[in-house]
């Protein structure tokens, strides 16, 4: 579904591109930057950074969920009703769900599972951007 080419549509696209950087990139990066044989404690620390310190500049720290909610607050209905949007929304929820593993009494999923779940946000966002681009 191609959006109408208006300045509003351009703004939405800009917002999606920013989300790609602010949320998608930093959700995945801490785990992706670990060695393949990273320990469970290293994975847990990286997951903590990915979910709870997703954007950190100076003393300002924002969680992945805060970034997502902030985006939703400004998302126009045309975007929210886009068929691809639901998949993106589900991928963010699934990533956020991983925070249960931050509890040390819970088992830590393998690194690749974390990467797949966290990386799915970027993948769905890419699809949405591709379809939104005039």
């Amino acid at each position, binding site marked *: 579904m191609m959006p109408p080419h208006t300045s509003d549509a351009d703004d939405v696209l800009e917002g999606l*591109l920013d989300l790609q950087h602010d949320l998608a*990139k930093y959700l995945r990066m801490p785990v992706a930057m670990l*060695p393949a044989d990273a320990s469970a404690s290293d994975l847990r620390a990286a997951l903590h950074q990915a979910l709870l310190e997703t954007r950190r500049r100076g003393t300002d720290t924002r969680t992945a969920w805060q970034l997502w909610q902030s985006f939703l607050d400004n998302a126009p209905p045309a975007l929210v009703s886009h068929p691809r949007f639901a998949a993106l929304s589900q991928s963010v929820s699934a990533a956020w769900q991983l925070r249960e593993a931050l509890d040390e009494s819970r088992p830590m999923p393998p690194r690749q599972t974390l990467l797949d779940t966290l990386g799915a946000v970027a993948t769905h966002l890419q699809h949405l951007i591709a379809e939104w681009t005039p």
Partner: protein
Amino acid sequence: MTRAVPQVLLIDDGDHYAEVIQRHIPEIALIQPLPDAPRRAIGDGPAAIAYLSQHSDAVDAVLLDMHFDVPETHLYPLADGASLRRTRRFQGVAILREIRARFPHLPVVLLTSREDLALADASFALAGQSMTYVLGTNDLDTLRIRIHAALSDAGQVAEEAHILWGADPVMRTLRRRMQVLARGRMPVILEGETGTGKSWLAEKFIHVHSGRSGAFVVLDLSTIPTDLIPAHLFGAVKGAYTGAIETRKGVFEVAHKGTLLIDEIQNAPLDVQKQLLFVLQEQRIRPVGAHREVAVDVKVVVASNRLLHSEVAQGRFRSDLYMRLSPATRIHIPPLRQRPGDLRFLAERFVARTVADPDVAALRDEVARGLGMAAGMPIALDIGRTPPHRDSDTGISLTIPEPAWRTMHAHAWPGNIRELETLMHNIAVFTLVGAVDAIRQGVRITSPQLQVDPGLIGELLRATQLSLVPDTAPGPGPDPASGTDTAPDTDTDGAHRDQVMVHIARADTLNSVAKHVERQYFTALYQRCHRDFAQMARVLLGDETKARAVRLRFNQLGLKVRDFDR
């Protein structure tokens, strides 16, 4: 040269990369730009450029983020007047452009996620100059490899095993790529203007790094009659064609287990191209007139001074052969005019090589004796009015006046490295012969700094430009008067150019050397101008009515028209 622990400047407005690198890549040290602040990164482009302006010597490489969420006043604009958000998103490209302009030799690794990367936007800045690290599946390993490669490039020596790489980042990239392509059996395409050193690189670098045990063999298709090309390439059995009085091996067989350079590949006739395609696919050849095929294992390098894809577009080169030659990895050697930063380094090295010639060394030693200095010292190259002090301990220097050096910088170098080598050879010889002449005639010289005649440089450079006269005539053959060679070349624009090399004997005077050069030059120009003295006069003097004067000089040089009719 990088330090034992490479010092790397991270330009990033966030903290993630700094933390990761400090924790997982301990073999490099992130610079702490502000001694009072613990942060191991610098947060925006202008601050980074200001830092590098003061400390670039202390930086071995730069890691550069792409997206910068900083105030507008701390952003470099993007060239196309992009929106603020877009400018932030691609700020790394704008910063990279600034770094390239001011610190061209500094290696940069651009850090970006796959989603951020818009190659179309960044490619102009990335081409041949920086490496991009893209987030993928093995991010840490990939980042390590990219940083290591950037630092290796920075530490790359400008000269190795007879190859003058210089310091231009494009040459660094080219070297790295050639080192990879040298391995394995995939063919390699070398493209570049005449004189850029394609054959030299094929032999001295690709063959050496191929690890192959066989010989390096060259076949230049521009020097072989078309109908004999198949026999030269694939061999021929006795009686296969008129004149085939014995069975001979082709270059593919000679180069078995080694490397074969097919130079000027664009000269291969279409039917030969088809045979070449078969050989590349099947690794077998069939000598002309033979009934059996012969298996060959050859690393094939093809060189051309034309762009092969243009030859394909014009129907002169088979597209299937072109695709088989792995065009995606073709190596384009840049012309000298695109590497101005390497001019001085190359000029110095060519002077040193000239003096390694025993005849030229004898001239140098005669000058040294005249100055009361020891023989055998190297000759330096100085530029401008205030060169470093030289005395009997530091040896002789050739000093090129600043205006002449500027002229050299502005020169288009149509003959590229080979032209510069010839020029520096001639500069050294003419200057030394001038000094020797003076000493022999009792003139007292006291300074080891021999000034190069700027008029000589201008004259020698103009001689090259003359050969840019549009022409469709064949290049010159042997000099009928002296028997010395001028080397014809054809460039991407189809123009013919000449190289004149001076061979001198110890007893030669400046006059005899100059006359020798002038004779070669007149020989080449006479043929280039279709034996038309009026056209020569137009080229030489800008006035075709002065043909008589040119004819007179032609005769004074001992040249005879009838020699060219033979």
